[in-house]
């Protein structure tokens, strides 16, 4: 293949070459290579992609396809400083849109565009996992600024216009607090006198697995698959090499519990991963860290380095002869779908994060075809406790079908947002009371892909057998319009669809357009029962067979809010019959211009006379 490498400027090519060398020109590291290159070059021109492709023995189309998949890679020019406003519904409820408008006005840029001098660009991104201390924004896909308000945005604009480097911005802006409001066992951490990892790993692999089986632990990432069954399947799969992967791609909007576990309980996480590796016979471990949590990377690398020094990782890890295991951290680049375990593995292999065809499942053939266990951060932290205190102890907490504790990321309309850990089986009402939610209208449990629970059902419990949750708990009070909440989540899913399967790729977009029609001032009075019927159609299609869970859950907010808050839709669909979503008269404007006419005969009268 011929590529025009000469089109890459000398310094840019040198930057890329240094990154390529650091990764030993390994095509599996493509996502990391693009990330690190862009950190220096700000964006990824096609000529640079061609240069990288040639160095890795990949086609330029392949590299372009990968670069175009991840929201944090820019294939068009952006500013030297890139600011992305976290755009979860909770950020909006805290006024993020007004702050974004304020910043854009001060800088003289339009959202999504770069200023004329190429200094900065301002845009939105999916939830950054800082809902309890938002509105938040991401700087250069690296640092985060929390607790934005008008004064902070003004000061930020001053610094940007003065060209002050990010390193010299006030440190207080970058402060991220854990915000633990109620700690149970996971957030309290391991007891000081808890057995050491070598003591734990003195048990046989089967004994470790049996403890986890006895605990009844189910995955904390959302699907709730029994952890021990996953491990057993991996252990039983054929092949000499196995992998253990921690899914730290905490992308579900409104979820931020893994952020705190990573920041303050990394040792428990790595303990859990090491126990899993010993149990299934894995040599290689990965943490797939979402790109939004890039700022946590140095401290996580530090913990890993310390553990290597302590002999807890590497050859004969934790003193177990013949047990060689180490952990590497892979950074994501802004793609919610990579939270799906097979998409995550594709991304680990440097490809587009498209969910794989299953079977085979990752436990049979995962990373590089090796049997691979993928578990959530919270799951591994639970394992660290179970391996020390026994499966029976864990099984005694929570309910029979939902053992142990669960951490909830509480945000939205409440006095005390933050992390709350309870035994599973705790009612929604209890959590609402503890967080100081006054007059709540609904709670989005488990994020947009979870369930919107109305006040009449607050007596229900969070548990796999009742209302399951991946950890988000967003509270909406009676001042909120649940139609707008559903529309916001619809935009999120359309933005995050990988584009593989027809129902998700097209369906999520059609839902957005239909909801926009009902929402817009232009649509006022134009919505009808026809539009509601089409929304039901789309809901049915997306719930009847998509390639992965993203599409399957994309219409959950629509379905739930239509069911519980039908009035919000009814008041937007009052037209007696179908009205098109286009202004037919406006469509004639070019014809009027061309003919120089503006008389009544040159206008369409589609409105019923008053």
């Amino acid at each position, binding site marked *: 293949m011929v590529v025009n490498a000469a089109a890459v400027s000398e310094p840019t090519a040198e930057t890329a070459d240094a990154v390529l060398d650091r990764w030993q020109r390994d095509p599996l590291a493509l996502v990391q290579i693009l990330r690190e290159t862009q950190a220096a070059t700000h964006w990824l021109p096609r000529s640079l992609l061609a240069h990288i492709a040639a160095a890795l023995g990949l086609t330029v189309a392949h590299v372009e396809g990968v670069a175009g998949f991840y929201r944090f890679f820019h294939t068009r020019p952006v500013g030297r400083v890139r600011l992305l406003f976290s755009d979860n519904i909770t950020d909006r409820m805290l006024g993020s849109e007004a702050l974004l408008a304020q910043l854009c006005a001060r800088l003289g840029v339009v959202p999504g565009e770069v200023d004329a001098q190429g200094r900065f660009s301002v845009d939105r991104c999916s939830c950054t996992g800082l809902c309890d201390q938002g509105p938040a924004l991401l700087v250069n896909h690296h640092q985060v600024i929390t607790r934005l308000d008008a004064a902070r945005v003004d000061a930020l604009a001053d610094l940007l216009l003065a060209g002050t480097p990010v390193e010299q911005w006030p440190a207080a802006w970058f402060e991220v607090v854990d915000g633990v409001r109620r700690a149970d066992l996971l957030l309290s951490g391991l007891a000081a006198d808890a057995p050491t990892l070598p003591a734990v790993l003195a048990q046989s692999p089967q004994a470790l697995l049996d403890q986890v089986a006895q605990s009844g632990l189910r995955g904390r990432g959302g699907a709730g698959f029994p952890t021990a069954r996953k491990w057993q399947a991996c252990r039983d799969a054929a092949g000499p090499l196995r992998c253990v992967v921690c899914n730290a791609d905490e992308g579900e909007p409104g979820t931020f519990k893994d952020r705190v576990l990573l920041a303050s309980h990394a040792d428990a996480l790595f303990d859990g991963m090491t126990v899993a590796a010993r149990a299934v016979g894995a040599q290689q471990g990965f943490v797939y860290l979402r790109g939004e949590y890039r700022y946590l990377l140095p401290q996580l690398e530090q913990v890993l380095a310390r553990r290597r020094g302590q002999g807890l990782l590497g050859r004969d890890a934790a003193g177990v002869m013949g047990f060689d295991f180490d952990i590497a951290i892979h950074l994501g680049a802004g793609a919610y779908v990579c939270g799906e375990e097979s998409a995550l593995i594709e991304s680990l292999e440097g490809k587009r994060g498209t969910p794989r*065809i299953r079977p085979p499942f990752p436990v049979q053939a995962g990373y590089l075809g090796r049997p691979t266990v993928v578990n959530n951060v919270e799951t591994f932290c639970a394992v660290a406790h179970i391996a020390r205190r026994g499966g029976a102890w864990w099984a005694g907490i929570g309910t029979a079908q939902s053992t142990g504790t669960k951490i909830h990321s509480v945000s939205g309309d409440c006095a005390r947002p933050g992390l709350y850990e309870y035994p599973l089986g705790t009612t929604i009402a209890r959590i609402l009371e503890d967080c100081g939610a006054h007059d709540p209208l609904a709670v989005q449990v488990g994020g947009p892909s979870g369930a919107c629970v109305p006040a009449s059902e607050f007596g229900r419990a969070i548990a796999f057998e009742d209302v399951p949750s991946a950890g988000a708990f967003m509270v909406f009070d009676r001042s909120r319009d649940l139609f707008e909440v559903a529309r916001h989540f619809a935009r999120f899913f359309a933005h995050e669809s990988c*584009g593989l399967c027809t129902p998700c790729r097209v369906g999520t977009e059609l839902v957005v357009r239909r909801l926009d029609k009902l929402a817009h001032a232009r649509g006022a009075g134009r919505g009808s029962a026809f539009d509601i019927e089409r929304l039901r159609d789309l809901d049915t299609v997306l719930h009847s067979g998509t390639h992965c869970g993203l599409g399957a859950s994309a219409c959950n907010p629509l379905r739930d809010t239509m069911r519980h808050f039908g009035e919000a839709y009814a008041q937007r669909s009052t037209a007696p019959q179908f009205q098109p979503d286009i202004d037919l008269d406006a469509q004639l404007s070019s014809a009027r211009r061309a003919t120089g006419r503006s008389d009544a005969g040159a206008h369409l009268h589609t409105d019923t006379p008053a």
Partner: protein
Amino acid sequence: MSTGDPTFELDGQRVPLQPGDTILAAAARAGLDIPYLCWSAEVSASASCRVCTVLADGRPVAACVTPAVAGQKVECRTPSLDTQRLRLLQMLFVEGNHFCPGCEKSGNCLLQVQAERAGMTDLNFEVLNPERPVDASHPDVLFEPNRCILCQLCVRASDEIDGKRVFAIGGHGIATRLLIDSPSGRLGDSALSVGDRAAHICPVGALLPKRVGFAVPIGQRRFDTEDTRG
């Protein structure tokens, strides 16, 4: 076939299966039609179109990639699955710009015939009217992205049969698109030749060999029936 051979049930009919069979492959061998767009026996499956969605023991799955299991009950022709297929086809029609009467693929087009068989008479959804410039740069093959349904057959044929890696998938969500591997990103600068399998595998009219458009007249084409033969 002896009575002891493994079978599964498709809409009440027994279908024999062989090791490694998918539901679609076993059904096709038995002469039973499960509608599809993005599948081909020649290349690996992408499972992207979802038109072959069936219920396997009540669970919706893509028949093209789901292993057939002895004793399983598979449903394809049910009222709700018929509607599901119709909606998926309508989604593909509104996503691109499909004008059958002006398309030289008409009569040979899998999307067209599946829509006809599904009884599609309207679009149901609003058209998205994307802007997709035609790429006529290749001397022998036309790339008409307005008709592309992202089935990936050309990607896979170029990778797996031609060994040329001419195509890739780019973008995401509704902006997902077919990419061409060449310095300019245009087909004319790529390694594709008209003899490649990738130049002929397109189920719709997105990749077409030039100058043979009407060599087979309308009325004598692959999917013409008694009704359309004239």
